């Protein structure tokens, strides 16, 4: 799914239960013009800046990294992490690219429960 389509559907899902998720009100809360957000949703303009996408993700309770990836962007903190050790992270990402999600999560982030 494309970025604009995804956020439009996410917003409209919330709008079904809560009128605060109208285009106009969401645009106000993330500090953009309603016409601009409408164009973003209809993909008539390029996705907004990282800061706006992060605000939008928070507003719609969606994952900011996911939205940034859909917009073809990478968050500033991730870019900084890669810039510090570019070869290591490039190698790591290439080696992990075919592993299933659950295997990556177990490898990288699973919290071990020990003896207590």
């Amino acid at each position, binding site marked *: 799914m494309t970025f604009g389509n995804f956020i439009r559907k996410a917003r409209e899902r919330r709008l079904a239960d809560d009128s605060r998720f109208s285009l106009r009100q969401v645009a106000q809360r993330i500090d953009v013009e309603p016409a601009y957000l409408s164009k973003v949703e209809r993909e008539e303009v390029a996705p907004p800046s990282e800061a706006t996408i992060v605000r939008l993700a928070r507003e719609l309770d969606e994952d900011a990294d996911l939205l940034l990836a859909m917009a073809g962007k990478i968050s500033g903190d991730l870019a900084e992490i890669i810039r510090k050790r570019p070869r290591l992270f490039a190698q790591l990402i290439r080696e992990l690219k075919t592993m299933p999600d659950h295997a990556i999560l177990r490898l990288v982030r699973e919290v071990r429960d020990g003896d*207590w």
Partner: protein
Amino acid sequence: MITLENDRLVFSFPEVHDDARLDITFQRTLRIPDDDRTYPLPPGLGCFPLRHVDDFGARVPEDWRPRGGVMLPMFQSEALWISFGRRSGYPFAMKVATGKINAVDGKRWVNGLAREPQNYMAVPPQPWLDGYCIEKGVIRQFVAMPLGDGYTAEEQITGEAEHGGIQIVAYPMKRARYEDLQRRERSRLRSVKLSVGFEECAPAAMGLAPGGRMRQHIYDDEHGLDAWDQANGSRCFVAIANSLSWRAITGEALPSLPPTARDYAKAKLPWFDYYAESPAVDGASALQNLLSVVGIGKKKRETPLPENESADASVVVPLGPAKPGPRPVREAMLE
């Protein structure tokens, strides 16, 4: 399975249901005055950083290593609250203890869930937990104190300073019950549509102690014990490092200090009250009998909370599902 994602503990149970995911964060906050007044909810001031204990090998205290889990940093006498965020709406039963003393029923840690008294929280409706359930509708705030000085709930109840930290277990709702709940919810929707004195020289391990009084309900579980899939729980030990040991272990700086409750209130920044229609459980007598940090300090002729002046929480924002209108968030943005 529990994973650590951007300072959130993510509990997921793909073996039960794809929707069975729950995010937990540990929120920095004001320490409310420990003055026997009952305060509204203080704000969230951002997440505490979380790190895997296993990532730091020999740099963590030896007794932390076998426990696994994660760790977070706190200044002495700093407060926190635990946020139960749900991405999917899947219901969970959550049990929380500090120093292996259950924060809801005041008893020592046991495996599994119990009713009469209820020893867990149903999420939803429980959105967060700020402290120990001492009375119906009142908690005493979680406040970090060094383990071994006699302030923590663990030491007051067991007489020992053995565990410290926070212990959490989550049980998802049984798949069949969830699907039944979803069917009923869809049908319902269709019909509708139509702080702070900080000390830097303390021992490494910290525990949580009861601080000031706050209005907060621990909601009665309306689903019943049978709704929860106790065969599929996941649990986590959250160790608490003091500021010096956090820097020594991780090399990272701590988040900035929160303001005192009095300064926050003077600036007319918002406090919160949560409105839900669900009935609440009674306080636990073991927790009601705990002395607060200031109470213990008086007995020991110490001043454990040097900046403990009362605050006038005059700006109170209502939150929650039973409150009509727009839904503000329990957060404050500080410059």
